[in-house]
């Protein structure tokens, strides 16, 4: 197995892998049926939202129950900008910045209290957000909501709308994932991990827990705004229902079920968010909420690292090293984002030169 991972880590294998993924991303939308394309695009939208939640919750250890608020805010900003006929690039920038500033303001107050204060404060965001969205009906269209069609495929591409929309989601979502991956694996990621592990230790090391909690929350809100923009690309309609409390809870559940503190887990979380309601509706629409709650509790009991830890757990079982049990699986999952640190092969270190130099700057 060691040789297999070493083979996977050689630079050219990596590049071939990346090229393959890019090629797949270009080709797949062209050959998949429309339903599959829209479903994948929706998964992409919520995967970005879950990714944001992961930055604040999975990597920094602050429970946030308000992530859907930032998605909704981004969606409303996008809808408003499109209706005002603003340049779409400007709309995108605003859809990122306005939620980020809102998140910054919330975090400045909430992060002052340690522990679960962020959870207790953020629960208010969707619950205040819904009546607020209804009240500001000039901008939000009140209870009816507001729709904005701007993501239809342009003539010259010869694409169908669903293909064009999926390309947009893949491009913007891909960039968001790439940037976030670099963020959580670099200097800031290590600071987040220390703050998550023990705030007092972080403070004694000169890492201000307050600053990094605020930063993580702001990044999460920004990613929420990005997913809100993508939401309007794919769904083209938003209403107060978009940012309801139940959705916010499902988002938290998706993150935990996909895998906290994991990039791949965010993707799985997005898939869970979109696919489970469809599946549970097939069983019994009345049971949807019961099943979702039961699935979340079940995953917490038997698979605390989320779906992403499944292969790891399975491998460990097969090798008969299951001594640590659930706790070990959890620890393994939480470090799954950075498996390469301290790896014996020199090739791996050379692939992260900025990380190394930043570490030197730090000390």
């Amino acid at each position, binding site marked *: 197995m060691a040789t297999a991972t070493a083979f996977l880590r050689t630079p050219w294998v990596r590049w071939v892998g990346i090229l393959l993924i890019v090629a797949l991303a270009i080709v797949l939308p062209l050959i998949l049926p429309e339903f599959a394309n829209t479903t994948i695009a929706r998964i992409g939208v919520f995967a970005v939202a879950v990714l944001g939640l992961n930055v604040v919750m999975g990597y920094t250890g602050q429970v946030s129950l308000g992530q859907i608020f930032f998605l909704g805010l981004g969606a409303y900003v996008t809808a408003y900008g499109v209706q005002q006929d603003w340049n779409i690039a400007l709309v995108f920038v605003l859809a990122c910045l306005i939620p980020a500033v809102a998140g910054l303001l919330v975090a400045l107050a909430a992060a002052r*209290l340690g*522990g679960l204060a962020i959870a207790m404060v953020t629960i208010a965001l969707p619950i205040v957000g819904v*009546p607020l969205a209804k009240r500001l009906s000039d901008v939000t269209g009140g209870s009816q909501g507001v729709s904005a069609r701007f993501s239809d495929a342009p003539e010259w591409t010869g694409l169908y709308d669903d293909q064009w929309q999926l390309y947009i989601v893949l491009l913007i979502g891909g960039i968001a994932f790439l940037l976030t991956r670099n963020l959580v694996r670099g200097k800031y990621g290590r600071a987040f991990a220390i703050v998550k592990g023990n705030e*007092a230790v972080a403070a004694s090391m000169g890492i201000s827990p307050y600053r990094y909690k605020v930063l993580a929350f702001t990044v999460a809100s920004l990613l929420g705004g990005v997913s809100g923009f993508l939401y309007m690309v794919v769904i083209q309609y938003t209403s107060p229902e978009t940012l309801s409390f139940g959705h916010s809870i499902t988002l938290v559940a998706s993150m935990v079920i996909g895998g906290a503190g994991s990039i791949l887990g965010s993707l799985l979380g997005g898939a869970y968010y979109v696919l489970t309601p469809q599946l549970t509706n097939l069983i019994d629409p009345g049971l949807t909420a019961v099943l979702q709650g039961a699935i*979340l509790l079940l995953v917490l009991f038997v698979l605390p690292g989320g779906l992403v830890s499944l292969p790891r757990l399975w491998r460990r079982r097969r090798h008969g090293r299951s001594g640590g049990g659930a706790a070990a699986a959890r620890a393994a999952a939480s470090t799954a984002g950075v498996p390469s640190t301290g790896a014996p092969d020199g090739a791996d270190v050379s692939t992260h030169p900025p990380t190394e130099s930043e570490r030197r700057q730090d000390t």
Partner: protein
Amino acid sequence: MGTFIQLVIDGLSTGSIYAALALAIVLVNQATGLINFAQGGMAVLSAYIAWQLTQWSVPLILAILISIVVSFGIGAFVERFLIRKFEGGDPDTAVVVTIGLLTLITGICAWIWSYNNELFPSLFPLETITIAGAVISLRSLGTIIVIVAIMGLLQLLFLGTKLGLALRAVAINPQSAAFSGMPVGRLLMVGWGLAAALGAVAGALVAPQLTLTPGMMDGALVYALAAVIIGGLTSPIGVVIAAWLIGVLENLAAVYVPFIGYDLRIAVPFLLLFVVLIVRPQGLFGRKTVVRV
């Protein structure tokens, strides 16, 4: 002036309901160090149980008492078979467990009783009395009296009984309590049971006003959490005062601040909260905790 007094009394009445839920949250937090986000959902389940009993023509007061006892059992059961596994572990995981529990309980209520609004009979007569030009409903007064009585009983339990002493010991330091031979696990179950019973009272008091639906307590839970932060997690009396403050302020703001109105008044406790957090991060009545590496 009459309207003002009326608004204050009504505010105290709704504030009392938040106070009951907030006390339940503080009770669980003091015993186990986690915030139970399912507290509101558990209260809704209790209210449904009471409502179902009245449908089977059990007298209302008896139905509520039965639901309180059943809720105590549910709370203890949940602690023993669900929360116990996550106690002492990562607090974030424990919180997500309570969120899962909230989803599950809300789902179960919706599955059994559907999302339709059900009329819950009021424990108090709907008549009003006039004092100094203010029309005050007996329900408001009754709610306040019930909550104050419960607060007194809780205080008596904690300060005047052996059980209360043991609960406090477990809350302050579970390990030392265990070393001195206390049944920590059983005491934690009792703590959760008491919290659930308290939630059941809140549920029975709020249901006539809001009509019974699975999501009935979501708003009240938010108010209760705000009261918990404003009052300070370590101070039961501070939490009750904060809940009353929230109830009164939001009622006044709904009438006297045109933009806020009835639908946006839920934002009031959070404006208050932001101000408090910036001035006194540990809450109005909370103790500052010292962390050690």
